[in-house]
């Protein structure tokens, strides 16, 4: 079926306008623009627009048109995941000290185990018998242990903390968390999809391992040519940029064909790209503007259209929601804080690190959409988890400023030797907004 072009263009225009306005308002209250855009998406969905003006909501977002909006937004998320992978430098992770390794691993296991424990309570209430408890619990664990690497980088950049000890440890831990979180999520998606298709899981896993090895040991060498040309000529031709995009899409298609999901291939392609700082910045600049300003707002809107806060009705459901937020925060903030404090970080700084690690942002929304797509979480639980993602991301900046003011962080950084190398990532759009 052909899309109604008028409806699609109208949708894009409305989404962009609302996201820009709300994003700007949030910037005024010292929040990253992306947090405002996430809120804007929710506002356009059944939680606000659909509730206050149902006729207008149906006119703007008729159900039959959402497939096209989804397709466009998914293209944006594919490119975004490539950029996230591009920003992660595995060599930097290798050079971490014991403290950062322990902190990053605890910041995964603590929320993961607590989420699985919470699943014992939530599964009989918010799931159904077509979802296995193992899938449900593992998904909840992965969703709660993720950190929004790009939002984190943006908050640290805005506060000029990227090169502080707190900033470097936080970025390194977030990178480890994201890579681990995506590996766990990959396993869950495999588990669920292989159960559906009847393909033995070892066959799918074998195929994926083979694909990953080809990418890491074969394609990666070829990708170095991009960096060499960039170094020699100072730029990449349009043909080369198109080839890079084709490789991203090809990799995404491969992982999808192998039974995983498009996003994993895009992320892997970004992760194996050369990591020379100027080259990374150049590629980010080329891709970010269109992705961050046009395509990601569509994803926020699409997420918002799936998020119905009206499903969280009654005292009981709001208690579940509050418990989810509390457990997510306790696991991520508490776990990271405890581990970094035990490894010698001062208490306030450790609390600051925990607060930063508790930022979930867009990465959480990406994971939740996958969960809803494969139906491992119900619409009501999806809405609760979106509220949790918004809450934990929103709280980061004010809580960080409250418990760990900039002057304390800088003083701590000056008094102690840096243990972790400075990361390269500075994901930002041309106007300074980050996803």
């Amino acid at each position, binding site marked *: 079926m052909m899309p109604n072009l008028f409806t699609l263009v109208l949708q894009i225009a409305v989404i962009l306008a609302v996201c820009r306005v709300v994003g700007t308002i949030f910037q005024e209250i010292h929040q990253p623009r992306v947090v405002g855009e996430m809120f804007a998406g929710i506002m356009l969905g059944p939680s606000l627009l659909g509730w206050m003006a149902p006729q207008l909501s149906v006119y703007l977002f008729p159900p039959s048109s959402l497939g096209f909006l989804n397709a466009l937004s998914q293209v944006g998320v594919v490119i975004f995941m490539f950029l996230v992978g591009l920003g992660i430098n595995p060599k930097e992770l290798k050079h971490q000290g014991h403290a950062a390794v322990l902190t990053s691993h605890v910041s995964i296991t603590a929320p993961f185990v607590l989420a699985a424990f919470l699943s014992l309570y939530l599964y*009989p209430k918010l799931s159904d*018998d077509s*979802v296995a408890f193992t899938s*449900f619990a593992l998904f909840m664990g992965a969703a709660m242990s993720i950190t929004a690497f790009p939002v984190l980088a943006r908050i640290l950049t805005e506060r000029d903390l990227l090169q502080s000890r707190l900033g470097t440890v936080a970025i390194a831990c977030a990178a480890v968390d994201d890579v681990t979180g995506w590996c766990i999520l990959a396993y869950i998606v495999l588990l669920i999809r292989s159960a*559906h298709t009847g393909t033995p899981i070892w066959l799918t896993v074998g195929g994926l391992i083979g694909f990953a090895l080809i990418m890491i040991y074969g394609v990666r060498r070829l990708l170095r040519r991009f960096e060499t040309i960039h170094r020699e000529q100072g730029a990449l031709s349009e043909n080369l940029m198109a080839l890079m995009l084709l490789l991203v899409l090809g990799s995404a298609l491969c992982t999808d064909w192998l039974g995983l999901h498009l996003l994993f291939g895009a992320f892997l392609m970004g992760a194996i790209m050369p990591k020379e700082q100027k080259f990374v910045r150049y590629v980010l600049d080329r891709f970010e503007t269109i992705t961050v300003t046009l395509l990601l707002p569509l994803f926020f809107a699409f997420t918002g259209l799936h998020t119905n806060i009206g499903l969280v009705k009654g005292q009981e459901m709001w208690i579940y929601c509050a418990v989810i937020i509390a457990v997510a925060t306790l696991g991520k903030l508490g776990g990271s804080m405890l581990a970094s404090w035990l490894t010698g970080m001062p208490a306030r700084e450790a609390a600051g690190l925990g607060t930063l690690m508790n930022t979930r942002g867009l990465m959480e929304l990406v994971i939740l959409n996958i969960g809803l797509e494969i139906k491992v979480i119900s619409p009501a639980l999806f809405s609760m988890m979106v509220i949790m993602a918004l809450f934990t991301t929103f709280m980061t900046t004010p809580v960080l400023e409250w418990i760990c003011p900039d002057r304390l962080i800088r003083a701590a950084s000056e008094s102690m030797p840096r243990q972790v190398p400075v990361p390269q990532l500075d994901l930002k759009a041309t106007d300074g907004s980050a996803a």
Partner: protein
Amino acid sequence: MSATTRNFVIAYVILVLLPLVGLLGILRQGRNLAAPVSVDGNWKLQVDSNQLSAMPCGKSLASAQAAAVTISQSGRNFTLNLANGPKATASGVIDGTALKASVQPSAAWASETGCGSDRVLTLSATVDPKANPKSLVGMLSVEGCPACTPVELRAIREVQAEGKRGR
């Protein structure tokens, strides 16, 4: 092994490995839990249209009686939408294999049919969890109308495109 490395190993075992062992225990324990029966998806409705037409509030439903019904489930709660029917949604609760839902008609439909104020259309059904595809049998009745004869309905769930999930 240096003291720093030894401390790191001890901390790692306590803070990372032990919780992971705990996770295995949680996953094992969770296997014994029972979740509500799944009714999520598209269902094909079979109702006697003559009986439905005779029922107050049922006239407009009769035109949609062959249409698909979409159920969106969140645990014990669910919402039900008629694909081509009147603009009305039903929300209900699952208790074991029993479903109970009340139709919430839109303002336009309510003014047309008089439903939604003192007369509420209710659905009571029982799902057969062992049937493949799943089926449900039940009654559609009007609350507050003892004279109205309840209408029997049957529905069969359509095979889902994306496998639900994780078995």
